């Protein structure tokens, strides 16, 4: 059954009444100006003390009695036939308890899994790997994306072209558009392969008890891992139990049961003992996923007024033996344009497989499109921010541009002198978009105990954003109790189902399920309280730690007293996440401003400050939300300036699979970051929360590249913007 509700939705200066159809048992979505007691306040995350004291138990920290340590032997060749694998010497080594072959006849990248062992110590496991004899027949390989497209290139997959089928999007007619254009800009932009570099590497601890498999796994998707393992080991899902209490980063690379998880379970079965298999750092870089590179030929056309009349993208990207390299999202989303054509093609190469990485495709596309916009603005002699305003496709972003420009001091900085000795200052702005709306599926349980505690249980996981905290805050809000009375238990497939944590889906998918569960629990508590107050349950509300008659705060009973009257030990209710409502808007706008200083003698780029303006719907916890903004920006600095997977053209081996040669942004690279949130009551769910993790990362590299262009007057069209590229751009080398 459904019911109609009318709610106030929108954002500052743009509020309207919107009618929504929602399920009968669904709480009315929080609306514009909703007075909330817990949600929206800065709260220290509830599990912060566990992390600050090193007591938070990660997969990496699991230790079981009799546990063995697994290690994986990887192919040194980027392409080879595996003729034979001889495990006998490894098996004879003292302390080795199991050795298995991966069973692949052909390996397609340097670092692919070939065999594995389990031993009583990590050192002995590594010793054993050296004793495995593999007879490889090396095959011709290709690692360069351009080479891979040549007809003579070795095939990555036998009988299949290295060039994937084109994914084409077309609106209007770009040829007509370009014919009408007063100014056209066309150029090629490239981005490198980036690796995720989660600090906790991929891995698992696997234990068999008969046909019951328990896996502690470093994953963003406990139910995905459960289902993958159930299929692979031919078990009913309830025979696979997956636990992820704490997760040391994922960024999109940890969704299913990857080879290392499967191997841990195979070794555990072969050895008859639990096996812990956490990857070493080099394997993490090489084999667990990456953001594909991109080659983007961008063509933009605009009228004299700056109005875009055509946008065209020809894109190629290689995720090694994986796909999903497209970057067209921003081209189709950020700007209003009648004629758009994008064509994306995956190119296969003999390199580690791609996996989703923080807004897959969007930082690449945003970088190329936004730097091209700046080059177009120069041709049109238009202010770059003004060009964006004239073509902006989203009213929320219009407000964001205004707010951001003010806080960032765009106009003053535009007029400031660029040169200070051999240093050049520059500023840039880039638009961001994402769609962190979440999805239906999650189911939550809310339990009240007689001592007044409330526990939320849901099978989601925390990738580091503070999931336990926001879920507990939503439940505390609904039940009218202080946050300290509520705890959230997550990360276990014994709880009710939830979706994987990726694509900014955790908060918007899980908070509505939790709110509904808490609302249902509240209904039950109100029915217990009603006779205590001599009132009808429908006339009661839960607020300030009491249950009271609405409008008569003195007719109240404490939440604790109501809980003491729970007939059994506990009272339990469930909630589920309905599909998204039409709401106010279903897109998510943002923009970022960056200021850089470029040393034209050394080529070094320093990011001085970033102003990030974002729509996250309703912010549950501004403190942890700001942490996410900082993180998205800082990872964007790495993408803009430092990070690049380098493969040796002769051997096909990654030459920088470490944390010093593969450089991440560090504390000294960190600019002043200002986070601004434009609150939007979107009514898409009962909480109106949008995920923030991707949106805050999309525009950073673009804004930095635009700022470098502004500083030196020459565009650097290739990420990362390393000193050699800057010096080449200014003609110093």
């Amino acid at each position: 059954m459904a019911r109609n509700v009318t709610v106030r939705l929108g954002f500052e200066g743009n509020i309207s009444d919107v009618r929504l159809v929602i399920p009968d048992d669904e709480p009315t979505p929080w609306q514009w100006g909703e007075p909330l007691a817990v949600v929206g306040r800065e709260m220290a995350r509830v599990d912060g003390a566990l992390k600050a004291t090193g007591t938070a138990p990660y997969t990496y920290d699991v230790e079981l009695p009799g546990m063995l340590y697994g290690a994986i032997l990887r192919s040194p060749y980027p392409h080879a036939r595996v003729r034979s694998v001889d495990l006998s010497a490894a098996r004879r080594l003292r302390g080795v308890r199991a050795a298995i072959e991966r069973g692949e006849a052909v390996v397609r990248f340097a670092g692919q899994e070939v065999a594995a062992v389990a031993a009583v110590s990590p050192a002995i496991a590594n010793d054993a790997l050296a004793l495995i004899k593999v007879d490889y027949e090396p095959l011709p390989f290709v690692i360069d994306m351009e080479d891979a497209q040549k007809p003579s290139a070795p095939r990555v997959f036998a009988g299949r072209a290295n060039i994937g089928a084109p994914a084409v999007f077309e609106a209007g007619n770009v040829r007509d558009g370009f014919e009408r254009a007063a100014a056209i800009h066309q150029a090629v932009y490239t981005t490198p392969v980036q690796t995720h570099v989660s600090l906790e590497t991929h891995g698992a601890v696997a234990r068999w008890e008969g046909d019951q498999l328990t896996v502690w796994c470093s994953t963003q998707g406990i139910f995905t891992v459960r289902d993958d393992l159930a299929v692979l080991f031919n078990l009913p899902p309830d025979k696979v139990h997956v636990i992820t209490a704490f997760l040391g980063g994922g960024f999109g690379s940890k969704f299913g049961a990857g080879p290392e998880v499967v191997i841990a379970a195979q070794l555990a079965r072969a050895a008859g003992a639990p096996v812990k298999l956490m990857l070493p750092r080099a394997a993490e870089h090489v084999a667990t996923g990456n953001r594909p590179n991109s080659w983007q030929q961008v063509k933009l056309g605009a009228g004299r007024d700056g109005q875009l009349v055509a946008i065209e993208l020809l894109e190629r990207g290689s995720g090694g033996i994986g796909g999903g390299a497209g970057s067209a999202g921003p081209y189709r989303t950020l700007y209003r344009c009648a004629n758009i054509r994008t064509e994306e093609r995956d190119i296969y190469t003999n390199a580690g497989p791609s996996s989703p990485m923080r807004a897959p495709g969007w930082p690449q596309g945003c970088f190329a499109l936004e730097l091209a916009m700046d080059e177009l603005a120069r041709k049109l002699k238009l202010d770059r921010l003004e060009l964006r305003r004239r073509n902006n496709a989203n009213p929320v972003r219009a407000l964001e541009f205004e707010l951001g420009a003010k806080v960032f001091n765009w106009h003053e900085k535009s007029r400031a002198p660029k040169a200070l000795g051999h240093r050049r200052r520059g500023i840039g702005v880039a638009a961001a978009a994402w769609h962190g709306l979440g999805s239906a599926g999650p189911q939550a349980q809310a339990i009240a105990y007689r001592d007044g505690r409330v526990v939320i249980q849901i099978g989601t996981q925390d990738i580091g954003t503070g999931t336990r905290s926001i879920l507990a805050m939503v439940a505390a809000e609904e039940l009218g109790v202080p946050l300290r009375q509520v705890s959230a238990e997550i990360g276990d497939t014994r709880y009710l189902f939830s979706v994987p944590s990726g694509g900014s889906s955790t908060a918007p998918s899980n908070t509505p399920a939790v709110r509904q569960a808490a609302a249902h629990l509240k209904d039950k508590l109100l029915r217990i309280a009603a006779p205590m107050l001599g009132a009808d349950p429908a006339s009661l509300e839960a607020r300030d730690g009491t249950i009271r008659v609405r409008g008569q705060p003195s007719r109240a009973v404490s939440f604790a007293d109501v809980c003491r009257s729970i007939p059994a030990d506990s009272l339990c209710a469930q909630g589920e996440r309905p599909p998204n409502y039409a709401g106010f808007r279903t897109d998510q706008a943002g923009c970022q401003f960056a200021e850089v200083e470029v040393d034209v003698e050394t080529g070094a780029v320093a990011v001085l400050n970033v102003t990030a303006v974002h729509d996250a719907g309703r912010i549950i916890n501004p403190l942890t939300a700001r942490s996410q903004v900082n993180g998205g920006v800082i990872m964007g600095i790495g993408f803009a300036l430092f990070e690049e997977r380098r493969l040796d053209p002769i051997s096909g081996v990654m030459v920088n699979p470490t944390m010093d040669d593969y450089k991440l942004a560090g504390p000294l690279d960190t600019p002043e970051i200002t986070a601004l949130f434009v609150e939007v009551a979107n009514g898409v769910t009962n909480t109106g929360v949008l995920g923030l993790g991707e949106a805050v990362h999309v525009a950073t590299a673009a804004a930095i590249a635009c700022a470098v262009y502004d500083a030196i007057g020459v565009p650097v069209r290739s990420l990362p913007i390393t000193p050699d590229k800057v010096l080449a751009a200014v003609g110093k080398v």
Partner: protein
Amino acid sequence: MPDNRDDGQRTRVFTRRAFIKGAGAAAAITSFIGGPTPPSAGVTRAQSSPTPASGAAERLGPDAATIVLTVNGKSRKIAVEPRVTLAEALRDHLGLHGTKLVCDRGACGACTVHLDGNPVVACMMLAADARGHEIVTIEGLGAPDRMHPVQSAFVEADALQCGFCTPGMVMSVAALLSRNPAPDMGEVKRAVAGNICRCGTYPHVFKAALAAAAKMRGVKPPGERA
């Protein structure tokens, strides 16, 4: 007070290079802990007494040998192969899982512990070379119910996201504050310059460090909200 400008970051850099050059030889690692820069007190001792006071040259291994480490104020006896690093010994032999091993080559600071009060990366030191020194790990700094001021400042400022770099960050900041109770922003940044966080938590780490310093000195933290 010794010259303490050389913080854990520089120590890390030189030990890492030693690791590459010296192929893990214990002597090379210990001789490089001080590096060519003025060694701090703990480092000097590490160089002058790498073995117990028996005087004679000592041979360990290749099999496990029993050694005694002083960790968080307690003497702990463990049997480890000589190749076992301090980080591995703490985690796999002493069950102190707060210390995280992330890069295993001194490049990220996640395994930072205190050795005689100085921050060192435990992945770049052999367990046997830590004998005779006072080792403090994140567990020795505080626990959830009695946190060190640096730890509570991290929680309050949300200076942690996934939390995997956090123990190392906390140890670097605590070491800084023990030798410099009133650091400025630049000193804070340099003290954690070798601690890498993929979640990008640095701004809140800086804030937490300054807040902890102020609190430990008994003054109002900078920029504290009413």
